[in-house]
Structure formats: structure tokens, C-alpha cells
């Protein structure tokens, strides 16, 4: 799994490539939390390159969305692949996370 962070103004677009499983989710959580600790609490996670996540990935996203919202920010998702969307739906995550078809939409949603 690779994680690439690109700032867009005060929003960070975090592109993930690879599988999010019980081994890689910890690296994802540490990266996201470190970024939030640096004061970046408006995140867009680009999931175009993620074809698989287990509940370990969901736990990383949940912990981060809780932390960003506690600080007045948010974590929003873009470009979710079908099987990952299915896991999010089965876990009831689509009701607590804002989901967008495109990264630009997710970025612009912070200004809305």
C-alpha cells in the first residue's frame, strides 16, 4: 500500500493505492493521525486505487473521522471502488461518512 498526500489549499487529498488489510491499516491510521496532529483536519481520501479493505481499514477511517470532527474538520471519501463500497455499506459507514464520485467534488464540498 502506498499513501500520497497532496495539499489543496487547507484541504489534504490523501490518495491510497493498494489493499487495506490487517497489516497495512495500521500504517494508514498512523499516517492519517500524524497528518491530523499537524493541524490538518480537512481530509479527502481518494480510494480509486483501493480494490480491497477489511474491517481493519474501516477502523482506521472511523478513528480518523472521529478525530477530525472533534477538531471541527472532516474526512470525506472519493472514487470508491465497487467492492470497497459494498464493505462500507454492509458496515453502515455510508451513513456517517460523506462520499463523492470525484475528488474535486469532495474538495469543493468543504466550501459549500
Amino acid at each position, binding site marked *: 500500500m502506498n499513501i500520497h498526500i497532496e495539499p489543496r489549499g487547507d484541504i489534504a487529498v490523501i490518495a491510497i493505492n493498494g*489493499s487495506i488489510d490487517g497489516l497495512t491499516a495500521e500504517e494508514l491510521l498512523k499516517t492519517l493521525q500524524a497528518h491530523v496532529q499537524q493541524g490538518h483536519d480537512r481530509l479527502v481520501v481518494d480510494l480509486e486505487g483501493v480494490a*480491497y479493505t*477489511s*474491517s481493519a481499514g474501516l477502523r482506521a477511517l472511523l478513528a480518523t473521522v472521529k478525530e477530525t470532527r472533534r477538531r471541527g474538520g472532516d474526512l470525506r471519501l472519493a472514487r470508491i471502488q465497487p467492492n470497497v463500497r459494498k*464493505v462500507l455499506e454492509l458496515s453502515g459507514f455510508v451513513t456517517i461518512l460523506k462520499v463523492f464520485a470525484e475528488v474535486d467534488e469532495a474538495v469543493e464540498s468543504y466550501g459549500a
Partner: protein
Amino acid sequence: MNAAPVERRFRAGSMADLAALLDFIDMACDPAGADVGFAVRLAVEEVFTNVLEHGYGGDGPVAVCVTTDGSQVRVVLEDDAPTFNPSQAPAPDLASDAPDREPGGLGWHLVHQVMDDVQHKSRGERGNTYTLVKRLPAPAP
């Protein structure tokens, strides 16, 4: 008519084996198609990590056997951990808003959601056999 069953075995003992285990599952499920492979991969990871984290509380042997034929994928996972019946797993919280949402119970919930049949047998005080079945979609007429 169903294809002759093909059986493949893998032994794992720690989280460090997860990547190799998932590669093994991908290989074993390849003939069954991507959607079936995704479901089985997810279910096996969830069972395996639950056995290590909650059963052993660390490392411990897990034997995995995947049998495929033309109609289904059947996975049997055997451990030596204390008896745990997944029907006793806590129900996941699927409704609370984010600040109150707790992730516990999601693993077994996903296993039941993506597989067609989930069975558990205990072998005394220690030792569990989990049997997971995913049926293949019927071929187009």
C-alpha cells in the same frame, strides 16, 4: 455438472503471515471469479485476525483448507484457541453517528454478510473449526 473438487492447504501462525495467506486465497479462488474471491478473502481475513487477536491473544497456529468445485468455494479454518462460537460475537453498531460509533463486532458481521453459510464446531475446551461457504453465481443460460 460440477468440476472435480480441488483442495489447497495453508498454515499460518501470526499476523506476519496475513499477506501470504491472502495471496493464497486469491490464487485458490481465481477460477471462481473476482466477486467470489473478494468475499472469501474478506471473510478469511476477518476470521483469521479474530482468532489471533481474541482467541490466542497473539500468535498461534491456524490451518486453512480451501476446496473449490464448479458450484462453491468452501473454506475450513482450524485453530487451537479457546472455544469461541461466532454466534456469541457482539452485534455491530451500524446506526450510531460517528462520535458514538464503536467498531467492535464488525469482523464477524462482515463474514456472515458476504458468505452464504458459516458454521462453527468446537473440539473440546480448545480448538475451533470454522467452515465458510460461498456459492458461485449460476452460469448464464
